[in-house]
C-alpha cells in the first residue's frame, strides 16, 4: 500500500501527512509534482499549503499541472484520492470534486479547531466512522468557504456526496458552528465516484498521539483499506 503525497511548490502539509500515514502503518511517499505519479500507486493525497502562493485563486495553478491529469486517470481507475485544505481547493479547481472553495466570510485567515459531522460512510476515509459521528479537527485557511449553486448542492445531497459538515459539538448543524460561511455548512465533498473526496479540515493534524486529538486518524487509515 503506497500512498503518493504530491508536493507542489508551496505545499507545506506534505511531510505532516507522510508522518501521519506512517503512524498508521500506511506507506506514504512524497512525490514532487514535476516527477509525475509513480507507476504503482495505491492512493494519492493532495496536501495542504499554499501552492503557487495562492496566485489567481487558491489551487488554480496546481490544478493545471500535468500531474493532475495522471491523478484524474488514477481516480478513474478507482485509486483513492483525498484533497486536504489546499489539496481540496486544487481538487475543486481541477474538477475532481464539485463546487469551489473561496474567501472566508470573515475575510480573515482562520486557524482553529472545529467540529465536523460525518455525512457519508461510503468513502474509504469515512467508512470507519459512524454516520453522524462528530470529529474535532483543526482548520487553517483563508479560502475555505464552500460555494456551489443550489441545484448542484441538492444533487450532491441526493447522491450522498457530502463528506462532512461543520457542526456543534453535539452534532447539530448551525450558522454559529460554520467557521467560514460555507454553503449549507459543507466542509468536504465527494467526487463523481466514492474514491475521490476533498475537505478543508486537516485530519493529518489530528492523527498523532501528541497532537490535540486523534479524531482524524481513522480518516487517513482509510488508505490502508
Amino acid at each position: 500500500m503506497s500512498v503518493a503525497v504530491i508536493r507542489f511548490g508551496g505545499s507545506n502539509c506534505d511531510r505532516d501527512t507522510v508522518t501521519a500515514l506512517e503512524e498508521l502503518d500506511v506507506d506514504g511517499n512524497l512525490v514532487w509534482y514535476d516527477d509525475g505519479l509513480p507507476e504503482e500507486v495505491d492512493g494519492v493525497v493532495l496536501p495542504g499549503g499554499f501552492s503557487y502562493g495562492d496566485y489567481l485563486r487558491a489551487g488554480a495553478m496546481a490544478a493545471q499541472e500535468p500531474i493532475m491529469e495522471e491523478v484524474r486517470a488514477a481516480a478513474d481507475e478507482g485509486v483513492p484520492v483525498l484533497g486536504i485544505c489546499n489539496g481540496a481547493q486544487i481538487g475543486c479547481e481541477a474538477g475532481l470534486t464539485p463546487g469551489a472553495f473561496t474567501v472566508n466570510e470573515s475575510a480573515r485567515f482562520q486557524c482553529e479547531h472545529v467540529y465536523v459531522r460525518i455525512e457519508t460512510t461510503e468513502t474509504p476515509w469515512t467508512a470507519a466512522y459512524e454516520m453522524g459521528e462528530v470529529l474535532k479537527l483543526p482548520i487553517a485557511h483563508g479560502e475555505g468557504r464552500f460555494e456551489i449553486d443550489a441545484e448542484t448542492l441538492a444533487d450532491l445531497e441526493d447522491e450522498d456526496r457530502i463528506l462532512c459538515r461543520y457542526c456543534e459539538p453535539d452534532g447539530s448543524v448551525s450558522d454559529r458552528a460554520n467557521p467560514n460561511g460555507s454553503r449549507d455548512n459543507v466542509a468536504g465533498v465527494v467526487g463523481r465516484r466514492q474514491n475521490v473526496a476533498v475537505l478543508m479540515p486537516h485530519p493529518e493534524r489530528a492523527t498523532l498521539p501528541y497532537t490535540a486529538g486523534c479524531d482524524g486518524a481513522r480518516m487517513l487509515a482509510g488508505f490502508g483499506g
Partner: protein
Amino acid sequence: MTGYTATVTVRLKAGVLDPEAETTKRALQRLDFDVEKVRRSDRFQVEFEADSPTDAEERATEMTERLLANPTIHDFDVEVDQQ
C-alpha cells in the same frame, strides 16, 4: 496572424458573497465616504496573435473558462482589440 489584446473582466456572480468587497466598503465608510455597495472584479489583459477578431475572442473566452475564471462562482466579459 494579427496581434490582439483581450481584456477579460472576472467578477463574482450575483448572490455570491464577496467578503473582501464588504471589508473594503466598511473601510471606505470609516473614511467618512457615504458608500452603499462595493463590487470587486479582476481585469486581465492578454496579448496574443489570432487569425481574426472572432478567433481572438473565442480563444480569450476559452482561456477564461479554463483558468482565469472559476465558472462555479464567476461571471466574465471578454473584449478584444486589435493591437
